[in-house]
C-alpha cells in the first residue's frame, strides 16, 4: 500500500472511531450504546489490521483477534445481559443535555488537537494524523462518564475511554509488546465483570441504576 493512502485510511478509521464515540452522546437507548461500543471496537480491529498489513506484523493480527473476541463479542454480550436483567432501557436525564453535550464534545476534540499538536509535529509516523483523534476519543469517553447518570452508560464511557487508549497505543507505537496487551485486555474484561456485579448491587439496593441515588447513602 502506498504510504500516503495508508496514512489517509488510518486517519479515516480513527475519525470513524471518534464518531462512534460521539454517537453515544446523541442516542438515548442503552441497547444502542452497547451496539455503538461494539461497532467502535470493530473499527479498532480494522485499524489494527490495517497497520498489521502495512507493517507485515503477525503479532498485531493476534492483538486484532483478541480485540475482536473480547470487545466486539464478549463484553457487549455481557452488557446486553446486564441491560436486559436490570430492565433499564433508556438513559434518563443526563446531567448535560444532548445539544450541549455535542458542543462540548466538539470543544474537547479541538482541545485534543491543540494538546497533541507538539507530538504530531515531532512524530514522522505515517499514522500521526490519527493521534489527536484517538486522544479526543479518550476525552469523549471521560465526558460520557461524568455527564451520564445510569451506571451502565458510565461503563460504556469507561470502555470508550479504554478504546481510545488502545487506539492511541497502536497508532503511536505500532503495537506494544503482546504481554502488555494481554494484561490490558484481562484488566478490561475483569473490570467489566466487577462493574457488572456493582450494577446488580446498585439495582438491588435502589431499584434503579441511577448512580445519583447513591448520594442517599450519606444519610
Amino acid at each position: 500500500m502506498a504510504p500516503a493512502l495508508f496514512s489517509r485510511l488510518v486517519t479515516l478509521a480513527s475519525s470513524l472511531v471518534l464518531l462512534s464515540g460521539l454517537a453515544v452522546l446523541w442516542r438515548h437507548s442503552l441497547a444502542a450504546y452497547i451496539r455503538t461500543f461494539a461497532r467502535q471496537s470493530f473499527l479498532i480491529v480494522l485499524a489494527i489490521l490495517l497497520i498489521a498489513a502495512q507493517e507485515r506484523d503477525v503479532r498485531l493480527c493476534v492483538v486484532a483477534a483478541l480485540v475482536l473476541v473480547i470487545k466486539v463479542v464478549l463484553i457487549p454480550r455481557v452488557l446486553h445481559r446486564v441491560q436486559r436483567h436490570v430492565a433499564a432501557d433508556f438513559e434518563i436525564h443526563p446531567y448535560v443535555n444532548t445539544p450541549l453535550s455535542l458542543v462540548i464534545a466538539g470543544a474537547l476534540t479541538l482541545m485534543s488537537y491543540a494538546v497533541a499538536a507538539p507530538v504530531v509535529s515531532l512524530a514522522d509516523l505515517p499514522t500521526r494524523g490519527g493521534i489527536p483523534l484517538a486522544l479526543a476519543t479518550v476525552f469523549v469517553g471521560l465526558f460520557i462518564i461524568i455527564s451520564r447518570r445510569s451506571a451502565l452508560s458510565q461503563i460504556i464511557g469507561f470502555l470508550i475511554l479504554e478504546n481510545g487508549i488502545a487506539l492511541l497505543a497502536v497508532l503511536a507505537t505500532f503495537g506494544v509488546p503482546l504481554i502488555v496487551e494481554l494484561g490490558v485486555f484481562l484488566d478490561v474484561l475483569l473490570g467489566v465483570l466487577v462493574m457488572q456485579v456493582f450494577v446488580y448491587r446498585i439495582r438491588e439496593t435502589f431499584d434503579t441504576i441511577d448512580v445519583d441515588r447513591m448520594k442517599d447513602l450519606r444519610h
Partner: protein
Amino acid sequence: MIPYLLEALQCLLTLTLAPGLIGLVRLLKARLQGRRGPPAWQPYRDLAKLLDKERVVSTQASWIFHATPHLVFASTLVVSLLVPLVAAPLPFDRAGDLIVVVYLLLLGTFFLALAGLDTASPFGGMGASREMTIAALAEPTIALAIFGMGAGAGSTNLGEIVARTLAHPEATLSPGHLMAFAALFIVMLAECGRLPVDNPATHLELTMIHEAMILEYSGPPLALLEWAAHMKFFLFLSLLSNLVCPWGVAVELSPRTLALAVLALVGKLVVLAIAVTVLETRLAKLRLFRVPELLGVSFILALLAITSSFLVR
C-alpha cells in the same frame, strides 16, 4: 458561446429531471412500503394540472405573497447555473461559489417563510416559525461544511473543488471530505423537508413544515413552488454526488463526454435517491424538539471536518 450553451443545458436538465427524481423517490418508497404507488412521471402531471388551474388569492395578501413563487423559482434556477452538474469549469463559476449557492437557496427559504406569515393564516405562521428554527440551525452547519470542503481543495469555488477532486482522487478518502459530506447530507434532509425532519407526504397540520407555508397557494403559483422544491432537492443531491464522487463530470467539452456526464449524473442521482428512500423508510419522523439534536450532530460533523482539513495535512 459553447460554454453558455452548457449553462442552458444545465438549466434544462434541472427543470426536466427534477420532478422525475421526486417521482422516482415516491415510487421507490411506495414499493418499499408494499404499495403500488403512482408512476414516476406523476409529478409532471401534477405540475401540468396545477399550471392549468385558476389562482385563488386571499384579499389580505400583499406583494410578498405574489412575488414569492417567482422569487423562489428564479433563485433555485440560478443555482442550477452555478452547480457543476455535467461539466466542471463553468463560465459562471466566476459569478458565484458555494457560498452564493447556499445563500441563494436560503433566500428562497426566507421569502417562503415571509409568504407563510403574509396571509396571517395560523398554519402559515406555524410552518414559517418551524422553518426558520430549522434554517437558523442548518445555516452555520452548511457554512462550516462548505469551509471543510473548501479547505481540502483550497477554494470555495465549486468547479475548482470538483476539478481538484478529479485530479487527486485519494482526497475523497480524507476524513474531512467524508464528514463534510455527511454533514451536508443531514442538512440536505432538513433543508429539503425530507423525513426525519419533515414528512413530505403528510398534510397533517401538527407535523408539517413545508406544506404549512404553501397552504394558501393554488394554481400556477403553487406549481412554481412545488417545482422549485423539486429542483432544490435535485440540486442538493447532484451537488452532494458531484462533490464526493465527481467521476463522469466532463472536464473537456465534446458531445461524447457530455452524453457520458449526463448518464453519470442520472446514475449517481438514482443511487442517492435509493439511499434517501431506504433511509426514509427506516426512519420515523423525529419529534420537533429532537431536530436541533440532529442538526447538532451535523454541526459536530462539520466542525470535525474543518478541523481535520485544516490541522491534518
